[in-house]
């Protein structure tokens, strides 16, 4: 098992290196002369060249990459000329908001989707199951921005229950405590995730229900509640661990959309703004961060599965 985890860790590192290289390369092909973007259209070519030379942008791509990676190893993500501060500080300013939004939605959606999916599996094809399935299917088939728009349209504009904009607080503590202001973005993210997870949980629950060990558990005379709690729940939830790990890119994408829609501070909004500003150091850093988050998420899911599943843990 240890050997497996070590191998898993090493491949993750390789993948992260690959991500770094591809992101870096892509941005360089797209924006070979950042000086122009920084100094603006009216700057002279000489000034642009001087800027590029001074910042090292005239060196071969691989030299730049190595330098970039070297800096990265020291936690230095570069400088954002547009914001006139380091990318690190930009990220540190904005990350907590995003982490709170996605963290709380992820937690809520797991807490809702797992019991919901099991309930649907147990009561399969009942009216309740079919209604939930229909609702989940609709949410699942909806672009996240439209789901958010619907919620704003009804809950904010028509009924004035919640504001249509997230908390504008730049400090994280007031942001977290602004529950009412952040209700709609969190609801949007949670609904999307619940739709996907509960569908999966339902089918995973159905698979588990068809297993012989459920029949044996019933043959022991256990109550149905105990059969579900002790025998179904854990076995049906195991595949969810992997799914949650895999859904991290979607969560990041969701942040991007939701933060834009609700004008909430965070990395997604930062990305869109800096992309418009052609602030490529920030854009690379954020994309890289997303990739690393995905890899780390998958790695954590694998480790969690290893711990949770005795078949992998003791082999």
């Amino acid at each position, binding site marked *: 098992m240890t050997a497996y985890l070590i191998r898993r860790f090493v491949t993750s590192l390789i993948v992260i290196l690959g991500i770094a290289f591809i992101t870096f390369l892509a941005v360089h092909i797209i924006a070979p002369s950042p000086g122009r973007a920084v100094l603006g259209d009216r700057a002279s070519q000489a000034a642009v060249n001087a800027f590029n030379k001074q910042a090292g942008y005239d060196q071969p791509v691989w030299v730049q990459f190595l330098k970039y990676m070297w800096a990265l190893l020291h936690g230095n993500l570069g400088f954002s000329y547009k914001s006139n501060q380091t990318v690190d500080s930009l990220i540190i300013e904005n990350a907590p908001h995003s982490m709170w939004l996605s963290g709380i939605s992820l937690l809520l959606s797991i807490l809702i989707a797992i019991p919901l999916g099991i309930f649907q599996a147990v009561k399969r094809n009942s009216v309740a199951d079919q209604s939930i399935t229909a609702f989940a299917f609709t949410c699942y088939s909806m672009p996240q921005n439209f789901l958010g728009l619907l919620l704003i349209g009804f809950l904010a504009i028509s009924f004035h229950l919640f504001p249509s904009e997230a908390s504008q607080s730049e400090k994280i503590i007031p942001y977290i405590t602004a529950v009412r202001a952040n209700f709609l973005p969190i609801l949007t993210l949670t609904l999307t995730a619940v739709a996907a997870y509960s569908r999966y949980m339902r089918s995973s629950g159905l698979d588990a229900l068809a297993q012989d*060990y459920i029949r*044996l558990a019933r043959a*022991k*005379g*256990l109550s149905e509640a105990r059969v579900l709690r002790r*025998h179904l729940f854990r076995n049906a939830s195991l595949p969810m661990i992997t799914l949650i790990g895999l859904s991290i890119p979607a969560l990041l994408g969701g942040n991007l959309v939701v933060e834009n829609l609700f004008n909430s501070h965070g990395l997604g909004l930062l990305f869109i703004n800096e992309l418009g500003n052609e602030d490529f150091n920030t854009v690379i850093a954020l994309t890289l961060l997303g990739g690393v988050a995905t890899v780390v998420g998958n790695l954590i899911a694998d480790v969690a599965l290893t711990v949770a599943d*005795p078949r992998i843990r003791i082999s």
Partner: protein
Amino acid sequence: MPPVLDIDHLSTHIQLRKSVVQAVGDISLTIEPGETLGLVGESGCGKSMTGLSIMRLLPNGGHIVEGSITVDGVDVVKLSEREMRDVRGNDVAMIFQDSLTSLNPTMTIGKQIAEQVRRHRSVTRKVATERAAEVLGIVGFPRPRERLANYPHQLSGGQRQRVMIAIALSCDPKLLIADEPTTALDVTIQAQILGLLDDLKERLGMAVLLVTHDMGVVAGRADRVNVMYAGRMVETAPTKELFARMHHPYTQALLGSIPLLTQERHERLFSIPGIPPDLTEPPKGCRFAPRCTRATDQCREVEPALEPASTDHWFSCWHPVDGPIARVVVASPTAADANGSGTGVTATSVGGGAAPAPLAPAAIVPERQWEAGADDANLLMIDQVVREYPVTAGILQRRVASVKAVSDVSFTVGRAETFGLVGESGCGKTTLGKVIVGLEKADSGNVTLRGTDITKLGERELRRFRRDLQMMFQDPIASLDPRMRVGAVLREPMQVQGIGTHKQQEEVIAELLSEVGLPMNAVERFPHEFSGGQRQRIGLARALTLNPQVIVADEPVSALDVSIRSQVLNLMKRLQQTHGLTYVVISHDLAVVKYLSDRIGVMYLGKLVEMGSGDDIYHHAVHHYTAGLIATVPEPDPSRERAKSEIGIRGELPSPVDPPSGCRFRTRCPAAQDVCAEVEPPLRLFHPGHYAACHVPLQEPMPEDGNEPAVSAVSAPSGL
């Protein structure tokens, strides 16, 4: 004493989306305290549904339509679900076929046992755990306390089945329902588990309902036997009475279609034509009538009731039979027989006049000359074949060990001969079969067909030789492409080999279908539209398309029901005669192998431990493994089964990654000595054509004349 279980006119239906399966129709049975009742029948006959009805654990859509099920004086059909839960696991316990899927993979076995104890006895967790350890000890786990923390995947199949039994008896049930308890297990383990069940029944005074398809299992273990067919109880009698004087033609036919170890192997097996009826629309009259040789219009119109022949022997038939079908049984061995049986047996001596004239094989496939002569005895030579699979581990996935699937196996098969390979699962017989047909490369050693070593051939040359080496697969469903019509399936070999025009191929297909007994319209059908037996016929037809010389049949009938099995076995024999085929039959079922084969090789953990004619093996086994294997095969004969005292082979198969030194069987051998661990026993000659590798053989070997051992096994023209 009142019966433990009294089922009265039970009917159970299963509601499907568009139809209703009448799974159990109007059956009655009783079990007395301490009695074992065998409930036998083929798949789909309703025997498992009867067991699940008692537990009220029917699958979705299943419901008891009418009748009563009285367990210890209480009609469980009338109980509320809450009351029923007090019965399950407490008064009645059940064990299922597949122990791997029946145990919760994420819960320790200790907890899985203890939770049932705590459910039915108001005891503390500690006491329940004590009880779990106690029952684990009862079912034969040494040091049970240490096992409590194990998860199911850490145990072998036999051990898991023991755990399931431990769960079942943890609350001292009055009745134990065992639903195919040993079907998924190897014969040696099966014997151990059945012995354990018997022993527990004696010690704990339980009644047992033994649900199985295997007549051999009930013969030895059941006090009475109920035979089910298509949802109906067709006959019930004390075990000996049923086997000796059955009255229902189905019982008679079922027993008659099982190949016996004692059987004269050139006799055609009795076979029941057709397949059981569809229970969504059961036939009006007797449900067996469409397949019954004695059926009359009365049978087709009016269903017979269960009538008593004597107080404890009941049957339902208008035209009862009396006793089993006569069949030729080889007399118990004598010296003369032993000397005579090794020679002079060829397929052409099979007879009874039933064999149709050899059909002209497919016209366009060039028939190879039967160049009679020296070649015949050594048509196929397997010489010192070794096949190992690497086991990798560690961070760099380095090869740390290997699974010794086939270790230095040699034998020769002559033309039109059948060579049987028998052994437990994991003994390497399937791998060896794949090496023979070239699906796997041997690590070393040769496979020689008509003097050409096919292991040395390139892919292009090998392709021509593949015509002569075909394979029949165990699972007739998996071996047919679900997206190909049968016509395309049978055409494929000719297309691959580039033989014949489209029209000629069509003729061959028509001929093949008639040969394997399928109608012409089968060409247009997809594999899933056929029954299991029909699919196996298609598989056989496909293997025959290229007019091969050798067919390797890997468990050809294991996936089939008993009555269908004999149809396919008969067909294989008939085709062997008409085509002069050479078979290598691979099976775990010694009776099947013995029935089909001229000579038999017994494999254990990658080694060929004994080889000889069927009678050599059966009557004069030399190797302790062979003898143990024979002792464990359940025979459908109560007197023989009951005479068996010891449980064949103890212990379980060691890991093929790290096989025991010296003789690989020594860890389970009753006669093992120091030399067995140190020196690997060579194959020695015990009788012309009869070899075995054992230091302490059950018989004296023939005197060695110098250069006898292993290599000579290859060239010995035994059997012909």
